[in-house]
């Protein structure tokens, strides 16, 4: 699975890196970024949780 976070759409709600810290991290301004675009199997649930809770729908999951 690959994760893409659209930095244009992201408004810094911060839900992704709070709910799924294995996949997302906060930058110095509080906006999220993806730690590693290719997500290991163990983190798929976390990636889904982070993506599903984004109020701006800024995160897309892409199946391999």
């Amino acid at each position, binding site marked *: 699975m690959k994760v893409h976070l659209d930095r244009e759409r992201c*408004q*810094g*709600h*911060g*839900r992704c*890196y*709070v709910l799924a810290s294995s996949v997302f991290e*906060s*930058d*110095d*301004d*509080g*906006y999220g970024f993806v730690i590693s675009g290719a997500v290991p199997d163990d983190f798929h649930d976390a990636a889904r*949780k982070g993506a*599903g*809770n*984004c*109020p*701006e*729908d800024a995160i897309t999951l892409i199946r391999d």
Partner: protein
Amino acid sequence: MTDDTSPPDDIEVSDTGLALDGPPQEMYKFLRDHMPVMAVEHEMMTGTSVALHEDVMTVLQNPNIFSSLGAAEIGQVRPLIPLEIDPPDHSKFRKLLDPLFAPRRVAELEASTRSLVNDLIDAVIEDGACNFHSSIAEPLPSQVFLTMFGLPVERTAEFIELKDGIIRPPVEGIEAATEHRNITGQKIYAAIQEAIDEKKANPTGDFISQFLDAEVDGHRLTEDDVLDIGYLFFLAGLDTVTASLDCMLAYLAQNPADQRRLVEAPDDIPAAMEELLRWETPVAGVIRVATQDTELSGCPIRAGDKVSVNLGSANTDERFWDEADSVDFDREINKHIAFGGGIHRCLGSHLARMELRVGLQEWHKRVPSYELKPGTTPAYTMGLRSVDNLELIWET
């Protein structure tokens, strides 16, 4: 809208039989079902109000069509920064302000906030009763904000009265409210100016001192810029977390099973807090101005029209949410917009979340079982939903 959902043109909200100061969720449902886009006229604005999640997101996520400039008339004499700044300048100011409110900066305030909450609880715990609004919900965010911003904490009561003079003007009628806001606004500017003058002479680590030294786009902020940021922060910092704590405690006092869960499973507090933010949406709405003719759910919106988005209704819209009207702390997907959305997403949301979480954690640690004082019914103010009469009792 189709004929069978059209209400009479001049329906009054009072015709629904729903109490204006009661829990608003039923009213929201009525609006969504019968007047999802409606004309409104009240003390805050004259314009159009939208209640569906889809329309609310359209407004919030299209700042070029729905601008914030001139939207909220809250006693200001110049555009508030960054709320009333449109792209592209908006992002330059957010670049300066976002790091100050980023989670890692907010984390540095957690220990002192926790100790403040405990001091406030210490003052009432032996009494077995308190007005939660005035004893906890008001002083907590006020003291955190004033310290952080650089305004004198010993003037908290005066500042809260000024803030209320804007948000809940104690007068009748639209004109009188506007006049009261304008007079109060001048006093707020004066209080911030006083602090600016003082920090110019003796800079400390607070926001005002930092802003006086800050640059945006290669230009140093002017004193007016600092006032225009300060005015917005003053109103946002002194009311919203108070209203949120009021709403959450009013809910928990009336729902003992949920209250018990926070006491017995404190790890669930962050998720519970998010669900209560969704359900209560303490900041119930925000206002924008259409920059061009457009439409929402098929209803025409003209350039210059004010559009109020009902965040509380969007957060409980059954067209968008599964089990929209059940309060579920285990909700897997909760992308509520209690802090708004789009480019003006609440700048202080991370600070607010920390204050709310710490407040809920410490309160439920110290007061493991509480209820409403018998004979009292929480009365919610409109718009920014505080509960001034939130009387709680517990066993000592």
